[in-house]
């Protein structure tokens, strides 16, 4: 899965690669230090200078890459990593040509650096190159040892454990790269959501401003036309023409903006005399989706009107998490849908075909003679991305399985070799292998990813106990020398701590690594081994656990960042949909303005003298539009038509919703009827007001100087109880 040449590398991936390169450099420092201790002891054969040069070049490039990782571009970094990885491959490939005539007792030291090589290869060419490097290194090591000598316990154990370290790095490093990619995806999604949000916000702000100005223009014109003041008629007509132009251009602008589905569906339903209901929260849909849905809706309504002209029609728009659904329902004569002739283009093409062409769209028709018709248009909402980077997790799980298999094979090989190398020690080697496998099995059986404290304690106890028992037995019972090979199981135990770290027990893992080092150092000192030998033996477990922990901490931080970004995306999307809903509200208001005010404005612009009736009509329309801004929940029937009639009688009616949407629907309805009853009798002035929450009453009404309030008397629990029969005190 290489990614060479892919454009648009994000910050997450870049930092994942930098971390791996730095990691590779750290590993190479450790390996080089160990190697130099061999050089100091003169334990190396004579290699030709060119061969040494290749090895040192690989080291130098790796170090260079690690040093400049945070200062160079991603491209340069990958080239350096590629050069380093190429250096390791070269040492492996050219090794046979460089072998001295007198043979060797050690294979090229760079082969021990397969962890560093794996990290560099991961950066240069992704997981595939990483694994190829690790496996080639291990195989080449064994083959060269077999051919050129050095196939001893220490050497083979070294190769095995190097293979294991490399595999661990490939898995965790690959995981880091995957998480980095996930991070970038999430960041891109967050940025896109923020951009959409601000675009929608800007659109809303611009539209609010434009609508306010147009509204102002229309209201002023209508108020003037209604006032009956002696104004020049041509000037009034010109003002009305300006207002018409403003309303028309606002409505046209609106048509060019992304359609707000709800508004368009409601308008379409109204055009065909159908009732409109919306269920669920308005979600956003793309332009193509809206166009297809609206086209099909139009056709369905058209068909319904044609075939069932007298039917009651309703349109229901439903938003769910998974789909947007529009149902067109009529109670007309119905028909048999299986018998739609192909030539009935209306249904076949315009409804079913149109919806089928829309990705995620479908249409169904439910009808039977005599039982009405339901046309259902559906569009499946694109599934939202999972919050966790699931692909990364799957890859990690596969990787862990692969590493576990490698672990089993390498540790079994080490145990067998050790048993062969030290005859009679097989009970020890077998016990060590069995202990490690049992512990891993216990961990695998843990129901949660993070094992419980008691389970962790058991694992640590078994691992450390096994290790101490093992080294003591090896050196006291079997009298083995302190070396890499005879303490192979220290790495086996270290891997158990890596597993604990992978399962979230990072602190325990580090402490375990400390115990391993302490045990190895004490045994080494007691056995009188040279210091450099002790350091070399202790190094591998430390590197294995330390590296795994460091990389896992990085992964965890990246994942936290992903979650934060994801929340930001969700928040942006919410704000966007809020702005969208507000804009759709506004769009509806403009549509209302165009519907009610335009005919009157056209009449005023004709420049003829207005009759009293017309002036009342202007006043009524002006009041109605004002209600759109200020009357809120009061701008409903039955109050609305009573208010319109009062205004036509010349009453100055003012409706104020000062409640802010806290009043419940079941309270609003009685308030509307209550107000309507009194407003119907008004002569000069009426002010209806929904009071702010927290007042004693819910609404007030002042008609011609008379003030009344509406209070919902809540029935208390005591009152609600049925009356008890009074005990009769008979004398």
């Amino acid at each position, binding site marked *: 899965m290489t990614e060479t040449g892919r454009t648009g590398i994000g910050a997450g991936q870049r930092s994942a690669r930098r971390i791996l390169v730095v990691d590779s450099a750290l590993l190479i420092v450790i390996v080089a230090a160990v190697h130099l201790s061999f050089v100091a002891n003169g334990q190396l054969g004579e290699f030709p200078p060119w061969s040494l040069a290749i090895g040192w070049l690989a080291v130098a490039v790796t170090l260079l890459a690690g040093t400049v990782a945070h200062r160079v571009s991603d491209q340069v970094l990958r080239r350096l990593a590629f050069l380093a990885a190429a250096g390791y491959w070269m040492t492996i490939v050219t090794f046979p040509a460089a072998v001295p005539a007198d043979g060797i007792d050690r294979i090229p030291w760079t082969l021990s650096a397969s962890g560093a090589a794996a990290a560099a290869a991961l950066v240069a060419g992704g997981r595939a190159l990483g694994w190829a490097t690790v496996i080639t290194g291990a195989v080449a090591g064994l083959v060269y040892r077999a051919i050129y000598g050095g196939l001893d316990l220490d050497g083979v154990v070294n190769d095995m454990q190097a293979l294991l370290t490399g595999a661990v790095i490939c898995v965790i490093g690959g995981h880091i790269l995957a998480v980095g990619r996930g991070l970038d995806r999430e960041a891109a999604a967050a940025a896109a959501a923020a951009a959409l949000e601000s675009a929608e*916000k800007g659109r*809303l*702000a611009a539209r*609010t*401003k434009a609508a*306010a*100005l147009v*509204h*102002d*223009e229309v*209201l*002023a014109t*209508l*108020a*003037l036309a*209604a*006032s*009956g*003041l*002696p*104004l*020049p008629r041509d*000037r*009034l007509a010109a*003002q009305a023409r300006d207002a018409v132009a403003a309303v028309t251009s606002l409505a046209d602008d609106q048509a060019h903006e992304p359609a707000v589905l709800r508004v368009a569906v409601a308008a379409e339903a109204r055009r065909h005399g159908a009732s409109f209901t919306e269920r669920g929260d308005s979600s956003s849909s793309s332009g193509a989706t809206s166009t297809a849905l609206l086209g099909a809706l139009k056709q369905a309504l058209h068909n319904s009107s044609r075939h069932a002209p007298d039917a009651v029609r309703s349109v229901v728009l439903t938003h769910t998490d998974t789909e947007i659904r529009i149902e067109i329902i009529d109670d007309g004569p119905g028909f048999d849908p299986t018998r739609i002739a192909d030539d009935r283009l209306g249904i076949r093409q315009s409804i079913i075909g149109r919806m089928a062409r829309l990705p995620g769209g479908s249409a169904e028709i439910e009808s039977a003679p005599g039982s009405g018709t339901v046309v259902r248009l559906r569009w499946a909402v694109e599934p939202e991305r999972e919050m966790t980077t699931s692909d990364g997790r799957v890859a990690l799980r596969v990787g862990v399985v692969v590493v576990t298999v490698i672990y089993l094979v390498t540790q079994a090989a080490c145990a067998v070799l050790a048993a062969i190398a030290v005859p009679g020690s097989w009970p020890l080697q077998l016990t060590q292998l069995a202990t490690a496998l049992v512990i891993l099995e216990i961990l695998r059986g843990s129901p949660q990813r993070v094992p419980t404290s008691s389970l962790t304690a058991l694992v640590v106890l078994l691992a450390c106990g096994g290790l101490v028992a093992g080294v003591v037995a090896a050196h006291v019972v079997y009298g083995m020398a302190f070396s890499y090979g005879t303490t192979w199981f220290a790495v086996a135990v270290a891997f158990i701590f890596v597993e604990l770290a992978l399962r979230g027990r990072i602190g325990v893992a580090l402490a375990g690594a400390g115990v391993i080092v302490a045990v190895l150092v004490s045994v080494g000192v007691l056995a009188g081994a040279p210091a450099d030998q002790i350091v070399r033996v202790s190094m591998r477990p430390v590197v294995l656990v330390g590296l795994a922990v460091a990389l896992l901490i990085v992964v965890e931080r990246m994942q936290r960042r992903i979650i934060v970004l994801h929340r930001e995306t969700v928040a942006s999307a919410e*704000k966007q949909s*809020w*702005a969208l809903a*507000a804009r759709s509200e506004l769009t509806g208001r403009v549509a209302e303005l165009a519907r009610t005010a335009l005919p009157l404005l056209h009449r005023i612009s004709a420049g003829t003298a207005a009759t009293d009736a017309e002036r009342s009509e202007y*006043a009524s329309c*002006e*009041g109605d*539009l*004002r209600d759109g*801004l*200020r009357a809120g929940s009061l701008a409903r029937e039955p109050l609305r038509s009573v208010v319109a009639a009062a205004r036509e009688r010349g009453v*100055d009616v*003012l409706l*104020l919703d*000062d409640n*802010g949407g806290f009043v419940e629907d079941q309270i609003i309805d009685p308030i509307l009827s209550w107000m309507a009853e009194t407003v119907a009798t008004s002569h*000069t*002035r*009426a*002010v209806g*007001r929904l*009071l*702010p929450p927290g*007042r004693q009453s819910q609404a*007030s*009404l*002042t008609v011609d*100087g008379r*003030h009344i309030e509406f209070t919902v008397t809540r029935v208390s629990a005591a009152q609600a109880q049925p009356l008890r029969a009074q005990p009769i005190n008979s004398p």
Partner: protein
Amino acid sequence: MRATTRIAIVDDHELVAMAVQNLVDEADGLVFARHATSVAALVRQMRDADLVLLDLILRDGTDPAENVRQIRDWGADVLVLTSGEDPYLVRNASRAEVLGIVRKSTPRQALVAALLTAARGELVPTTEWASALDTDPLLAAAPLTFREREVLSLYASGLGARGVAEQLFISENTVNDHLRRIRSLYHRLGRSAATKVELYQRGIEDGYVQAPGRD
């Protein structure tokens, strides 16, 4: 007390100015001074008006409160004319030093009465003005007495000073005193709230900031 009050109007629409001129010509003691389409154009000249009728929404996008401030600095009283705007703009203007907020579609006699009251430099309390104040979260925390809140609420419900007085069994003068105190308190709040609170509120009203209780 002036013998005649000169009245200027700032409005985008010339026709509105002509309508106002009609009303002014009818009333005793009022003289029409001038029509300007922006506050900048008005105050550019020497002061030639005692009372300015200011349109709440001007096409040049200027802020109502800032417009009021400029006219006050110029030396004239301000009466704001509205078409029936949202309470946010009404509050914004109310917090500045205005005599009142009057709807353009107010019946003629009431409009003339409002002009005459404002010409005397007196407060012109209207239902719209009281309603915008009564619902202003800023005023909810202000040190108003219970009686003052009662007066404001009743006034916002459409009653005039006499109606409020009858409801509360107090004199009309007392009602007017309460209204004056509410107005001056609101102006003081307006000055201190010019920055942060205003921005926050605007945010809520524009929907950019989540209002408490909206979610």
